[in-house]
């Protein structure tokens, strides 16, 4: 229980001060992750199920490490090994898990809304680890953390989110989170990669040309072109996309001297980036984001799994 939040499913339910508390707690956990013994006994005796019904490597491994470093007991569950392939419904699976007396379920699913369904079927704390095209709140938290570490403040910060906005669950959490923190968000994409109503995501501006907006941006957030989710032909070729929307060494000259580059990973060199920009020593925070993933997930687990259920925790 964190203030009045039992779950972490929809990041827009959190206030700016609550998100800041999560970031500050993550900072405290960052110190734990720098130690020789990277483990604290905080969640000793708690059981956490990682229910990943869709392939995931970094989110899953980062949750698992976060749980282990907090001394929780973990159960990895999902994929082709589960009973869903034998015809069991999601709700029946969750009720079965509950019979094991678990404390938290981390849900990744290809269907938007699955974590919400799980939270209704189970008394456990539910954390959304990415659902369909809906959201990915812990990804947004680690993005906020990485930006906060470099920029110290979000107020008036100009953030451009570039690429496959329409297929991206990262956007579904990141854009609301940035807006809550006071940043100014521009989405940049060819029209075919935008959702029908880009304003619904809450972005302040929509741009169709990267070169036009690049000189203004403090943070350039590149999205992966999700080849597995592309339907129809949103652009003629990956090569053309790269030339128009790829962040390249040539395009870097347009950027502010202190602008940074983020990406949720996995990166496609040659599509959204050339081979140079992801490794840019000053600008790229891509590996910092990976590290931040452990810290913010430890913080979210700590804040949600601590305290009593009676709302007395303060």
């Amino acid at each position, binding site marked *: 229980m964190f203030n009045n939040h039992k779950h972490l499913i929809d990041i827009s339910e959190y206030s700016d001060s609550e998100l800041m*508390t999560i970031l*500050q*707690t993550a*900072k*405290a956990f*960052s*110190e*734990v992750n720098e*130690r*020789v*013994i990277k*483990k*604290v*006994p*905080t*969640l000793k005796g708690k059981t956490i199920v990682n229910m990943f019904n869709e392939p995931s490597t970094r989110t899953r491994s980062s949750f698992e490490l976060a749980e282990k470093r*907090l001394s929780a007991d973990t159960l990895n569950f999902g994929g082709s090994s589960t009973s869903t392939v034998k015809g069991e419904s999601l709700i029946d699976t969750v009720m079965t898990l509950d019979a094991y007396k678990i404390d938290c379920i981390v849900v990744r699913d290809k269907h938007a809304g699955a974590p919400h369904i799980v939270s209704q079927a189970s008394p456990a704390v539910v954390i959304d680890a990415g659902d369909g095209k809906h959201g990915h709140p812990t990804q947004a938290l680690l993005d906020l953390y990485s930006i906060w570490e470099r920029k110290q403040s979000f107020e008036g910060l100009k953030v451009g989110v570039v690429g496959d906005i329409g297929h991206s669950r990262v956007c579904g959490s990141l854009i609301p989170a940035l807006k809550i923190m006071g940043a100014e968000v521009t989405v940049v994409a060819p029209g075919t990669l935008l959702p029908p109503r880009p304003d619904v995501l809450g972005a302040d501006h929509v741009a169709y040309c990267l070169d036009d907006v690049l000189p203004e941006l403090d943070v350039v957030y590149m999205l992966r072109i999700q080849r597995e989710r592309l339907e129809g032909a949103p652009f003629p070729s990956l090569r053309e996309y790269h030339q128009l929307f790829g962040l390249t060494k040539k395009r870097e000259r347009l950027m502010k001297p202190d602008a940074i580059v983020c990406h949720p990973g996995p990166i496609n060199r040659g599509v959204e980036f050339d081979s140079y920009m992801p490794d840019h020593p000053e600008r790229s925070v891509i590996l910092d984001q990976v590290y931040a993933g452990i810290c913010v997930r430890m913080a979210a687990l*700590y*804040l949600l799994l*601590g*305290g*009593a259920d009676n709302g*007395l*925790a*303060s």
Partner: protein
Amino acid sequence: MGTSSPKAVIMDEISISRAMTRIAHEILERNEGCENLAIVGIVTRGDLLAKQLVDEIREIEGVDVPLGSLDISFYRDDFATHISPEVHATDIPFNVDGKRIVLVDDILYTGRTIRCALDAIMDLGRPSRIELAVLVDRGHRELPISPDFVGKNVPSSRDESVRLFCKEVDGRTSVEISDVEPGSHVGSAPLGGE
């Protein structure tokens, strides 16, 4: 931890300062100097006292001993009922291996905070020994923990709250005792000095 009304000031700024000076001398006397010595304060309040001790030792010996601060939020044994909304990062900028560490806290009460702090330090390495300095010992231990250096022993009732106020955060420096409204403490005492 419940509402409270001030009852009495047990220590004022001058007596706190005298007690800290004496503790600094005692630490140096017992160790015959400050070789291998390090001071670690428990946040919040203990870290402010730890800084004061380091300043005193500098006055006496002319040496800067390493100073660290320890947040024990992740080690608390009452995590199921109470979490700290504000967690401060532990900041121990030296290797604890082989060090003689003096742990500093403001009020010693049940001893549970100290148990957490011992766990937290052990996770950072293997000090040669750990000693405990507290400004006030108010009794009512729930664990076999005993301080090495004490500013003042204050017999108290479980229904009372004993708190250190520090100029840096509260605008005044004093140790105050007050009544806690009945019923706000259920079961064993909460962690921390109160």
